[in-house]
């Protein structure tokens, strides 16, 4: 068994009066892809946004319970959220490059964290990040062009490059392919296969095939509860819960 990177313990999340997550407990293994599946509104996005505390942005959101990354509770008062997000990168559903140049998009993270010592350092980080995101060859001649001028798939890979530019341990992907065509999706999935040698990846997806293709473990969420989490083969071939069975066979969701 691989070592455990993230461990959620009895996580409850509320949006105002409404409870969005009920007693979720699960762990995620280091340098593996963990997929979270489930019907819309089941809480899988809420859960992944707890892992880098993006939910802090929402005023009415309240989180109870514990999430440990490498044994440290990220909801402890001593945890600084900016530092956490440096270690836990995130890629969003809709590609959201900054309305700046491709270079600036990737250079922004290292710059604010003071990772690069000088200009050539920064350039090296940008080039490496773009290479790791399998985007460099396509944009190497136009690093000063606007990032928003790229195609959807390229924009999403730019966002992945932006996420890995600050050298995180973990990359969260919240339905990264839902706005992309099948070819761009295939490229991102291929990329995930490469990235998992270096990073722990958590992916929320609507596509069960995608979960089956890219992940080693899969969690199934339903109505805010984690119904089942297990090895991906087990979930898709021999789930232990009837609801999982119904969902993966397409009876609902």
């Amino acid at each position, binding site marked *: 068994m691989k070592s455990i990177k993230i461990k959620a313990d009895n996580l409850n999340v509320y949006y105002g009066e409404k409870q969005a997550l009920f007693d979720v407990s699960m762990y995620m293994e280091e340098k593996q892809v963990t997929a979270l599946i489930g019907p819309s509104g089941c809480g899988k996005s809420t859960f992944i946004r707890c892992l880098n505390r993006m939910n802090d942005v929402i005023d009415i959101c309240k989180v109870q319970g514990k999430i440990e990354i490498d044994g440290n509770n990220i909801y402890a008062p001593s945890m600084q959220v900016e530092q956490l997000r440096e270690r836990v990168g995130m890629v969003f559903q809709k590609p959201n490059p*900054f309305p700046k140049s491709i270079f600036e998009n990737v250079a922004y993270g290292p710059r604010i964290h003071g990772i690069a010592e000088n200009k050539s350092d920064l350039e090296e980080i940008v080039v490496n990040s773009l290479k790791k995101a399998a985007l460099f060859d396509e944009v190497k001649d136009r690093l000063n062009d606007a990032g928003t001028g790229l195609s959807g798939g390229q924009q999403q890979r730019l966002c992945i490059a932006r996420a890995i530019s600050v050298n995180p341990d973990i990359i969260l992907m919240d339905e990264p392919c839902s706005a992309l065509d099948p070819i761009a999706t295939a490229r991102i999935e291929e990329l995930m296969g490469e990235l998992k040698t270096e990073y722990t990846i958590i992916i929320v997806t609507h596509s069960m095939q995608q979960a089956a293709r890219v992940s080693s473990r899969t969690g199934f969420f339903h109505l805010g509860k984690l119904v089942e989490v297990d090895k991906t083969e087990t979930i898709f071939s021999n789930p232990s819960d009837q609801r999982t069975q119904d969902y993966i066979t397409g009876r609902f969701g």
Partner: protein
Amino acid sequence: MTDRIEQRINSLNKRLNSEKRFRIYCIGAMSFALAWVLILFLNIFSSGYSAFYRTVIQVDVPFLNLIEDTTQFSEMSSEDINNLSMYSFSKKAIYGLFPDIEEKKDKKMLIRLFSIEFEQEIREFLKSNKSNINETETIYLTASDDVDQVNKGNYPRDLDEDKRRIKDIQLLFFDDLVDRGLVSYEFNLPFLMRGDSREPELAGVGGSIVGSLFTILVVLILSFPIGIFAAIYLEEFAPKNRVTDFIEININNLAAVPSIVFGLLGLGIILNTFGLPRSTPLVGGIVLSLMTLPTIIIATRASLRAVPPSIREGALAVGATKMQAVMHHVVPVAMPGALTGTIIGLAQALGETAPLLLIGMVAFVVDVPQTPLDASASLPVQVYLWSESAERGYVEKTSATIMMLLGFLILMNLAAVLIRRKFETKW
């Protein structure tokens, strides 16, 4: 079957006809509005353009009569020239136009063809050309307002003499001068450079232009940073609760407060309590800032709100602090909108009159202000002041001032459009 098809065609025709009617209504409404704007512009332009040139009369001034040797002028300082007594000398130079006149009454009438500052104009000519004054110099002296208006055709000559400000004998003099080719037009530069005056031919908008510019500068310096920061705080940082709701409602209300109320506030607090100098662009600017702030805040908040939240999330997700996310990514995108709002707010402030009346910027100020702490008029107040004056000359000057004001407003709105076009983020 054919009945049904016919029915359909009928109903379609009805719909198309009503669409045609609707379009005609819309075009009609637009044309009506446009016609009024056109009438306004035509009216102002036709009565105002003549203020941009003025009538001057050529007079030969025999400087040799003032001094034995005209080269001596070059050794005199401006002070010395100011001390020269030139009044009767200048009058004699003007009498030289009609050497045959003997009667004192007629001479007085002749002098009145000129602006009362004729002596001063000759002195100024002497000062600026003192190094090479000939024995006799031809100087273009400003004609009096009555002559100016007659020359421009704005003044009826066929009224009874006792109903006219300009007398028959003066018209005789004038017509003779015209025949001799001594009367001419020139561009009215003094109108753009000078301050207000009791004499229409000497009054200028320079003072009120500078006053308006100082006022707008004060408004810009005060309300732009305050407005932008307030908007950023309210939109990005403030918690959404009763207090911020209350603030928001009040800012929106503030935008609808009649401007004269701000004038009362300025009178009561800024002048009386804080004792800042009356009638100055500084106070005017402070009062107008209060009025402009809500406009800027509302416009800036709207453009901040238009920035997609995904940009903020993108920045936060790489570990930016909230302030970094806002200042590095949200504000630059929102800036063109904020600037546009600011310029439109400034344009509003530029045309505002009522609050300035209350804080004393309605005073008669002759000097062009040098700093925002000097008493001054402003363009809209100048319009108000001149529109009340009886002399003919102020009619064209009122319209000309409105033209300047409209010119500045059009320029500012143009700047707003250009800024928006140039810096708008393309997605």
